């Protein structure tokens, strides 16, 4: 099966006064038709920039300096402005972390949907209105006909995210990129939104790229997971394997730092240290300074040569310890 969205060796760099920041440095990702790909990682690991890069939404001083992005076999990086605006929203759509500020504050939510519909499709105002109302219904906005003329500030966070989902899915895109869609919401609302995303994407056959730092959300939704660290994918595998048999020391650390419901540990296990500053990257393996495995095995190569992405049974992993063992 060919991948719907294929990112290869993506490099997005930011030119700052303190030098070049390699926010995304050699990321490979594949999104197949209809699947849910989770991208997890700490803040600053480059997951949001990867997502933005996929739609070429990275602003100055950021720039995609290398790699390729292909949607359905077409090269996204060489598209002109017109092709890009057709791609965005129509084929690949995106929702963001802060739903309330992502809606235009002075235009009613209904009009925001109908304008999008009319921009991309050749339909009448009345058809657009009907479609918008049925969309609002399908994302669980009660009394959609009345709510059609509501404004963003009249909605709660959860409602606003539902509206955002309705807008993002209005044109039945084949890929939906959700950048931390539940981070700003209450836990109970989070569950509802996750359920909604799952249902709608399954219904429409839309592939979902879920960017999050919440492993719980990933476990709930994703088919496959890519774990990012310091601008690179360190491990990629299907969701069961990730939780049952994590390979990369960073993934192991992430999983063990999750509190287990019903068990009170003295202290949560944390990964020592912090994500390295992009301007001050470790020369070889980027996780090496924080890596328990490296210390316990006393490996030197981790500080000398960057590890390559290694194919495993269910996916791939970037670690010298695994490569040495196999």
């Amino acid at each position, binding site marked *: 099966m060919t991948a719907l969205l294929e990112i290869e060796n993506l490099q997005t760099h930011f030119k700052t006064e303190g030098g070049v920041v390699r926010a995304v440095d050699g990321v490979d990702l594949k999104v197949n038709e209809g699947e849910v790909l989770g991208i997890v990682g700490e803040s600053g690991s480059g997951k949001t920039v990867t997502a933005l890069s996929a739609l070429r939404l990275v602003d100055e001083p950021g720039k995609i300096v290398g790699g390729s992005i292909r949607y359905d076999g077409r090269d996204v990086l060489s598209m002109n402005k017109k092709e890009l605006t057709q791609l965005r929203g129509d084929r690949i759509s995106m929702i963001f972390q802060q739903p309330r500020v992502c809606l235009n*504050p002075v235009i009613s939510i209904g009009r925001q949907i109908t304008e999008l519909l009319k921009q991309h499709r050749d339909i009448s105002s009345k058809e657009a209105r009907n479609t918008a109302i049925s969309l609002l219904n399908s994302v669980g906005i009660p009394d959609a006909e009345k709510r059609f003329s509501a404004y963003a500030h009249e909605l709660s966070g959860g409602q606003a995210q539902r509206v955002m989902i309705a*807008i993002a899915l209005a044109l039945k895109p084949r890929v939906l990129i959700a950048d931390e869609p539940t981070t700003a919401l209450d836990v109970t609302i989070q569950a509802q939104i996750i359920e909604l995303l799952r249902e709608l994407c399954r219904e429409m056959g839309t592939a979902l790229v879920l960017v999050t730092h919440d492993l719980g959300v990933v476990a709930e939704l994703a088919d496959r997971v890519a774990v990012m660290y310091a601008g690179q994918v360190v491990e990629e595998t299907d969701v069961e394997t990730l939780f049952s048999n994590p390979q990369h020391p960073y993934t192991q650390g992430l999983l063990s730092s999750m509190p287990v419901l019903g068990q009170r540990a003295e202290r949560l296990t944390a990964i020592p240290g912090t994500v390295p500053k992009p301007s001050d990257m470790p020369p070889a393996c980027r996780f090496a300074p924080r890596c328990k495995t490296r210390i316990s095995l006393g490996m030197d190569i981790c500080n000398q040569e960057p590890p390559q992405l290694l194919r495993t049974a269910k996916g791939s992993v970037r670690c010298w310890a695994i490569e040495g063992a196999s």
Partner: protein
Amino acid sequence: MTDMILEEQQTFGKPTGSNFARAMRRLLRHRSGQVGGGVVLVLVFCALAGESILPYDPLSIDPINRLKPPSAEHFFGTDELGRDLFSRILYGSRYTLMIGLVSTVIAATFGITMGLLAGGGGKWADMLIMRVVDVLLAFPYILLLLAVVAILGPSLWTAMIAVGVGGMPGYARLIRGEVLAQKDAEYVEAMRALGASHLRILFGTILPNVLPQMVIYASFTIPLAILAAAALSFLGLGAQPPIPEWGAMLVDARTFLRTAWWVVAAPGMAIFVSILGMNLFGNALRDVLDPKEMSK
């Protein structure tokens, strides 16, 4: 399931109507909105009602009754040609309003377009447009007006165009700043992610968000435009006699300042009251259209 839907309905506030209806309600409760709005309404009424409400013909000369002080017959007295000042003031309101509106529309249309393109059109457009704006601002205001009138010749219309040109840079600067501030807002980013083109984002997404600021700015520049046009008329470069434009009336009257105060007082007070009213109205507009207040 029913429980969930019930709960969700409660998360909505009471239905509050459109932004416009809410702003109007707040405006009617606002004290200076009431006073200023009253003055503006009277002005608009006088301008629209036309000749039918005038006690005398504003242009007919009556030498026998020249320079009569205010009386029951002539509320504001008569001028040096015996014309009824009350009628002339009422009739002149249409010129005043027209000058204010036309010149502001000219200034706003060009200024807003320039500002949008400067703020959203990239480095070169920004450089080019803002340098033009700087040049316009570098001229002393009245000199700029005189220059435009000198090119087009003195008349009521050229006065309006001149005042409009003079007002453009203010709009351009204001809206450019607003565009720069809004350009990186999340909802703009979201629009881009949904495939909106550059122009659509500028005119369809950002412009509606900065319009309240524009309305407020306009409410302050309309009286300024009227004053500027009156000044031009005063210099003999605006409305030409016998048009009862207030500024022009003031010029004609100044010779009689010592002998017949009412000839000067009538147009002077008319300008004063209407400018005051419009400023009060502008204050009220600023309060009710404040985006932070809107969401209450």
